[in-house]
């Protein structure tokens, strides 16, 4: 787009596996929003899986090697920052960078491990994290490139003001629950972005889009992650309470930033609703778009480039309801203004005993 040429903000881009399949619309809408806001993205050539959660639950060096390979590939783009939409990829890539950097010290443990009770006679002979990772990679591991989330790039590099200025179709009246997922901001020492307990980046982007952001207490509560396959019951319980909370906050939609959250809350909604109904609760029909899809709509980008048709729960009814509510509110405020005007006129022309506009008797209670 035209503004893309006026800034020189360009980063390497790591899509991540989910974004080639179940979360294709997250990839597509992230790219579209970045292009529209002047962020250049150069795909990491020949990228492979970051290893995600399964790798680190099996072995930290294996996880480090799988992630580090992509950091090495990212450097081939000539850019030291790698943007990724997926928080799991982000965590995997940042964890690898973090431990490789820490490992300039012989053993990461040496720094934290201050207590005599934990002293391990073997710690001196244990090979360092870096040497173990490099042994798996069979080449030196990098230190240079570092991963950031697309959300962080939009908030910190582009800026909320610039986003607000680029909005063409504000999402007026749409009540959105901002759901960050559990690892976008945690742990704070690793992610180094926003507040770990009450993050606001997503709130600010959505507000800039003209949406009404509801105060959502479960911003960072886990949705059940990848347990949908091995322990469906756990995912159902955790996702059901997120939906209940969003509904009780009056949200029309939940905006997400994580492909796994989106899958649990959208594609698996039937499973989650079945659980809620079985518990005597209620099912929910609220859509769960990626925040980049909402941002794209607000920026006036063509719907075809945002993958709205890939959402299992249609976003359009929520948008229509918001538009209707806004029209209704406008009508009411126009009526109120009219009434106030005529009251004023009455006050002038009449005996002068009528209540003054704005006095307490005239104002309906909230």
């Amino acid at each position, binding site marked *: 787009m035209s503004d893309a040429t006026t800034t020189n903000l360009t980063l390497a881009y790591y899509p991540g596996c989910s974004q*080639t399949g179940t979360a294709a619309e997250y990839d597509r809408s992230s790219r579209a929003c970045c292009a529209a806001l002047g962020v250049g993205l150069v795909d990491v050539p020949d990228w492979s899986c970051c290893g995600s959660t399964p790798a680190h639950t099996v072995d930290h060096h294996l996880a480090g090697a799988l992630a580090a390979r992509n950091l090495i590939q990212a450097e081939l783009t000539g850019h030291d920052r790698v943007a990724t939409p997926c928080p799991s990829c982000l965590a995997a890539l940042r964890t690898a960078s973090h431990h490789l950097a820490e490992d300039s010290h012989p053993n990461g443990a040496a720094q934290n491990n201050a207590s005599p009770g934990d002293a391990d006679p073997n710690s001196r002979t244990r090979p360092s994290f870096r040497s173990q990772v490099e042994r798996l990679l069979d080449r030196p591991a990098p230190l240079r490139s570092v991963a950031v989330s697309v959300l962080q790039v939009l908030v910190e590099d582009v800026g909320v003001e610039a986003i607000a200025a680029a909005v063409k179709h504000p999402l007026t009246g749409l009540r959105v629950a901002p759901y960050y997922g559990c690892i976008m901001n945690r742990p704070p020492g690793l992610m180094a972005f926003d507040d770990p307990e009450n993050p606001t980046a997503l709130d600010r982007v959505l507000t800039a889009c003209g949406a009404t952001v509801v105060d959502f207490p479960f911003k960072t509560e886990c949705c059940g992650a990848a347990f949908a*396959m091995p322990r469906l019951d756990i995912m159902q319980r955790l996702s059901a309470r997120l939906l209940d909370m969003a509904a009780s906050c009056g949200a029309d939609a939940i905006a997400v930033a994580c492909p796994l959250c989106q899958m649990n809350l959208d594609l698996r909604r039937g499973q989650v609703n079945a659980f809620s109904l079985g518990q005597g609760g209620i099912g929910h029909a609220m859509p769960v778009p990626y925040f980049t899809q909402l941002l794209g709509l607000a920026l006036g980008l063509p719907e075809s480039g945002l993958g709205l048709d890939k959402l299992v729960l249609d976003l359009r009814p929520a948008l229509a309801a918001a538009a209707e509510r806004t029209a209704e509110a406008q009508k009411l405020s126009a009526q109120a203004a009219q009434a106030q005007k005529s009251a004023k006129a009455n006050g002038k022309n009449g005996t002068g005993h009528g209540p003054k506009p704005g006095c307490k008797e005239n104002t309906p209670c909230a």
Partner: protein
Amino acid sequence: MHIPTPPLDLEHARDASFQAAVASESGQCLASCYQCGMCTAGCAYTPDYDVPVHQVMRLVQLGLREQVLSCRAIWLCASCQACTTRCPNNIDVARVMDVLRHMARRAGHAPEANVKTFADSFLASVARHGRVFEAGLAAVFAIKSGRPMQDAGLGLPMLTRGKLALIPHEPTGNGKAEVAAIFARFNRFADQGAGRHSHDDVQRSGTPKASANTPKARSDTAKDSAPTTEDGQ
């Protein structure tokens, strides 16, 4: 919530080197845990745990190796980082849970067999394709877990929305071979560390080897190689 504590046999069950081993592998100061319970309070999985996470920490301090490594909780931890974020003593509790899971694997424990099967199937998919092939992973897991119909209803909505890639998206260049080589080295080093050859590797059976920096813990690798037959649920 009241969680009953199983009887502690400190006299006989205590393994004094256990705390040091966990501290060393995780790089965390375990002795500084003063049992405030903050980790458990914020853990979304506490209702599913057999041992709440602060008690896991305590059992490690007490050196109750078997009790820790055989519990379900370490398999149900989602690495959501709430505990790590909130621990007043700056202990990376999630990393400790990770390390305990590694140790449990090496010791041949898998009380949540499907969780282990899922991780193994996921990594087998990465080893084979260089990236996760979602449809293949779902199919493999459905068969291995013995619950083939659980997610059958998701196929149609995914298909109609073009979300179900039926052909793997593999890395475009050398990536696939490089990832396979990382897994091959990982398996080889794990075998060397164990001081013997194993009949198992990731590509063949979908079961990645655990690393072997504490060979003495690798007493029972036989269970490692048979993830599909120990469906304990």
